[in-house]
C-alpha cells in the first residue's frame, strides 16, 4: 500500500505520548509558566528542611516584626521567627495532604461517575440527585463538623478532603462517560458479550482519562485552598508547624505594622494555585479537550 509511508509517524507508546503532552504544554506560554511554578513549589516543599536559612521554631523576642533586611530577607513575624523559612516550609503539609487526597478523590469519584454513566436510567438519575444535594451543602461547615468529631489528624484531613472533593468528580466522569457509552464501540463490546468491568477498563476509561486528569489538576488547586482555609480557621495544622493558612491567620491582625509577614504566605499560596490552574488549562489544550483548539482541516 502506498499510504504506509505517507502517514505521519506517531508511535503508540505511553511514554512517548506523555512526552508529547509535556512538550505541548511547555510550548504554550501559559503552560510553561504554570508548570515552572508548580515544579518550583514541589522542589521547595521537598528540599526546604535542608535549604532554609533558620530554624522555623526559633522564637526571638528581640526580632519581633523586623522588616526585610540582609539577614532576614522576608523579615520576621510577631514572634521574631524568620518569614522566609516559614514560607518555604509552609506548603509542605498542604501539598502532602492534597497530593494524597487528590488521587483518592479522582479515583473514587471517577469510578462511580463512569459506573453511573454506563448504568444510565433510574439509578443514574437518582444518584445524581444525591450528588447534586451533596454539592449544595456548604462544604466548609461539613468539613468542620467532621474535624470536630474525628479530630484534625492528617489521616482524617486526607480522608475528608478525598471524600468531599470526589463528589464533583462524579459529575465530570459521568458526563464524559455518557458521551462515550452512546458510541458504537461500546455497543459493539456489549454485543460481543464483554463484562461490565472489562468494558469500563478497555473501552471507556481510556476515553475518559483525559477529562479526569484535567479535573484532577483542578481539584488539586481547590483542595489546597480548602486545606489552607481550614488552617486559617484553626482546624488544620496546629502551631508551631509552619503553614500558609496558619501564617496568614496569625499575621493578619498586624498587617498594618508588618505586611511582609502576611504577604509572603499569600504570594506563595496564590502562585501555586495559579500555577496549577495554568498547567491544567494547558493540559486540557494539549489533550485536545479544549474545543477551541480543533485542527483547522
Amino acid at each position, binding site marked *: 500500500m502506498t499510504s504506509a509511508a505517507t502517514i505521519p509517524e506517531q508511535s503508540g507508546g505511553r511514554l512517548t505520548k506523555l512526552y508529547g503532552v509535556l512538550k505541548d504544554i511547555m510550548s504554550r506560554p501559559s503552560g510553561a509558566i504554570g508548570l515552572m511554578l508548580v515544579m518550583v513549589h514541589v522542589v521547595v516543599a521537598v528540599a526546604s528542611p535542608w535549604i532554609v536559612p533558620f530554624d522555623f521554631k526559633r522564637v526571638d523576642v528581640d526580632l519581633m516584626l523586623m522588616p526585610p533586611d540582609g539577614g532576614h530577607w522576608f523579615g520576621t513575624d510577631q514572634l521574631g521567627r524568620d518569614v522566609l523559612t516559614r514560607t518555604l516550609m509552609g506548603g509542605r503539609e498542604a501539598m502532602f495532604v492534597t497530593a494524597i487526597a487528590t488521587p483518592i478523590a479522582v479515583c473514587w469519584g471517577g469510578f462511580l461517575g463512569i459506573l453511573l454513566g454506563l448504568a444510565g436510567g433510574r439509578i443514574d438519575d437518582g444518584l445524581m440527585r444525591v450528588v447534586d444535594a451533596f454539592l449544595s451543602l456548604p462544604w466548609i461547615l461539613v468539613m468542620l463538623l467532621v474535624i470536630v468529631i474525628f479530630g484534625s489528624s492528617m489521616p482524617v484531613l486526607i480522608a475528608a478532603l478525598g471524600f468531599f472533593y470526589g463528589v464533583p468528580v462524579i459529575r465530570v466522569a459521568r458526563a464524559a462517560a455518557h458521551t462515550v457509552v452512546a458510541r*458504537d464501540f461500546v455497543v459493539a463490546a456489549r*454485543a460481543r*458479550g464483554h463484562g461490565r468491568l472489562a468494558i469500563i477498563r478497555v473501552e471507556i476509561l481510556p476515553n475518559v482519562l483525559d477529562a479526569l486528569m484535567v479535573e484532577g489538576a483542578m481539584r488539586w488547586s481547590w483542595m489546597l485552598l480548602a486545606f489552607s482555609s481550614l488552617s486559617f480557621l484553626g482546624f488544620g495544622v496546629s502551631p508551631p508547624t509552619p503553614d500558609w493558612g496558619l501564617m496568614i491567620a496569625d499575621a493578619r491582625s498586624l498587617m498594618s505594622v508588618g505586611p511582609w509577614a502576611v504577604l509572603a504566605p499569600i504570594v506563595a499560596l496564590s502562585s501555586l494555585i495559579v500555577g496549577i490552574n495554568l498547567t491544567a488549562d494547558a493540559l486540557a489544550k494539549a489533550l485536545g479537550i479544549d474545543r477551541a483548539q480543533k485542527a483547522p482541516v
Partner: protein
Amino acid sequence: MEPALIRFDDLSVGFTSRDGRLLPVLRHISLAIAPGETVGLVGESGSGKSTLALAAMGYLKRGLKVISGTVTFAEQHMFSLGGSELERIRGGKLALIPQNSGQSLTPTLRIGAQLTEALRLHSKLDPAQFPARTLDLLRQVRLPDPEAIIARFPHELSGGQQQRVAIAMALAGEPKALLLDEPTTGLDVTTQAHILDLLSDIAQKSGMAMVYVSHDLGAIARVCQRVVVMYAGEIVLEGTPAQIFKNPTHPYARGLLASIPRVSNARLPVALEGRPPAPGEAGQGCAFADRCPIVQPVCRLERPELRAIASGEWLRCHVPELAQGIVMEPMTAPAPVAEASSDTAIFTLSELAISYHQANWFRQLLGQADKSTPTVKDISLTLARGETLGLVGESGSGKSTILKALAGLTPRQSGTIAFDATEDLAANVDHRQPDQRRRIQLVFQNPDESLNPRQTVAEILAQPLRLYFGLSGQALRARMVELLIQVRLGAHYLDRLPSQMSGGEKQRVAIARAFAAEPDVVLCDEVTSALDVSVQAAVLTLLDRLRRERNTAYIFVSHDLAVVRALADRVAVLYQGRLCEIGRASDVYANPAHPYTQVLLSAILEPELAARPKLMAADVQELSPPAKGCACQRRCPLKVGMICETETPPWQTVTPGHSFACHKPNNSMG
C-alpha cells in the same frame, strides 16, 4: 459568452501545518460560472469541492488562507471585501444551501419568523408585503399548506421539508447565484428526487446560477449543465454531463463511474484502489499517478496542465488516449447462493414486533402489558446459511431496529427469533450463550464510531480473539495478522490508531473484528454509507469475498438500493416498520410488485443522462405508522380504497419465494 458571475482566478488555498509547512487544499483553480448556469462540483471527500464552493462566498474554514489568486462575484473581489459588504452579498445575492439544513434553521423560531427575518435582511420589499411573500416563497418550494407551515417549528418538519424551507430562505433575497453543498445527502431517495426536481425547475425558471457540490454523480447528472471533477484540490476534468458520463477522458472519472453500483446491474462495482493524497503529499507529478491504472513515467515527473480537448471540455491528463482502454463495466456477477429452505435456515423471525415506546414503570409494576403501536411489527422472515438478505427502506423504516433486536441490543415486544437449533433466542444479549454471541456479529455504519479511538488495531482485534478463543501471545498476533491480510491490510497496521487510517481502512478493521469471531451471521448496518463511492466498491468486494470463503450469512441493511443489488441474494423491503415485499433480488428488482417498492425503484438516480426519476409518491411526512390497515396507505399512488385504511393487507405470491403485502391484486400491477 456572457461575462462570468463567479470567477475563480488561479485560486490556491491552504493551511499551515504544525511543523510550519504551507499545505495547499486547493491548487490553482480557474473556473468561471456564467449567470444562469448550473455547475456541478464532484469529487471524493477531501477533494476540496466544498472549500471551493464556500470560497465563492469569500468564506474559508478556520485555519485556511488564500495562498494566491482571486475570487470575484459580480465583479467584486470577495476576499478583499469588508465584513458589512460581505454580509450584504451573502444570503442576498449569493445564497448557500447547506447539507444539513435542519441544523441551520433556528430551533426556537417558527418557520414564518425565520423567513421574515431573511426577507428583512435581504429583500427590498415593503414590510407590509412580507407575509404574502413568505407564503409565496413556501409555495415556490412546493411545500403543501404554507399557511400551516409558517406556524411550525423546524423540528416539526421532516428532513425534506426542512431542506425546502432552507431553499425558500435562500430564495428570499432573490439571489443571482445559489451554492448548494450536498443539499440532498442524508435525505431519502424519494425525497431527494423531489428536491432535485424542484431545484432544476427553479434554475430554469429564475435564471439563477447554481454551484452544486456533491459526491453523488447521479444527482449531478440530473441537474447540472456543466460538471467539474475535482481531485486532490485540482480540477482534473470539466465538461458537459454528456461528455463526462458517457465516455470520460480522465482515468479518475472513469474509475469513479465504474465504482458506482447500479440498480440495473446485479454486479459488484470495481473499486478504485488506494486513496487520494493528503494536502501537501502530491508530488511534482500528476496527483492521481499513484492510483492510475495507466500511469506512465511522465506522469510522475511532470504535472499535467488543464487543457481544452473538445468544445467546452477541459482535461488534466498526459495520456487521455490510454484512458479509453480502461473498462468501465462492473465485474461479472457470481452465481447466487441457493434458495433458503427450512433445514438450512439460521435465523427465523416470526411475527417480530419492537416498540420504542417504554411502558411506564407504574404499569409494569401492575403487570399490565404494553399496548402501544409498535415501531416494527409482523416481521416474519428466514435467513439461510451463507445467504445475503438485503433489508431496504427509507430512514425510520425500522431496518436498523431489526438488526439491533437480532443482536440483542433492543428489547422486543413480541414474536420470536429462532437461531439455528435454538428455538427462541434471548432478547437481551446479556442472557445469551457466549457461543451464540460469537456466532452473531455486527458491523456498524460509521467506523469512527465503532472503533475505539484510543485503541490500536491490535487492541481492537484482540478483544474478540481473547474473549471467544482465549488467544494470547504469539498465537494471538499470528491470528491478527491473518485477519488483517484477509481484509487486504497488513501486519504494519497493527500499531495504528483509527485516526491514522482512512475511512475505508477503518471499515476494513471493523469487518476484520467481526470476522475474528468466526461468525455464522454478520449483521451489516449501512456499512458503506459513510464511505466514498470508490471505497464503498472495495468494501463491497471484500464482503463478497469473505462470505464466499467462509459461507457467512449477511443481513445487509441499506437505504441504497443499488448497493443492496450488488450484494444481496434476497431482498426485503420495509416501510414504517412493516414488510412490504420480499423475494429473490433478481425478481424484486426486475418485477417489483408492491407499490412502495415501485416508488423506491423509480426514485433512484443513476449517473446516466437518460435517467429521469419518476415522482410517484406524494412527498409527505410520515409521523408514525398507522394504527391499522396498510403501512403505506398515506403515500401509496395506487390506493385501492377504504380497505387500505382498515385492514392489514394480505400476503400475495408473485412467483415462488417472491411475495408482497397489498390489497391490490397482482395482475393489475405495472
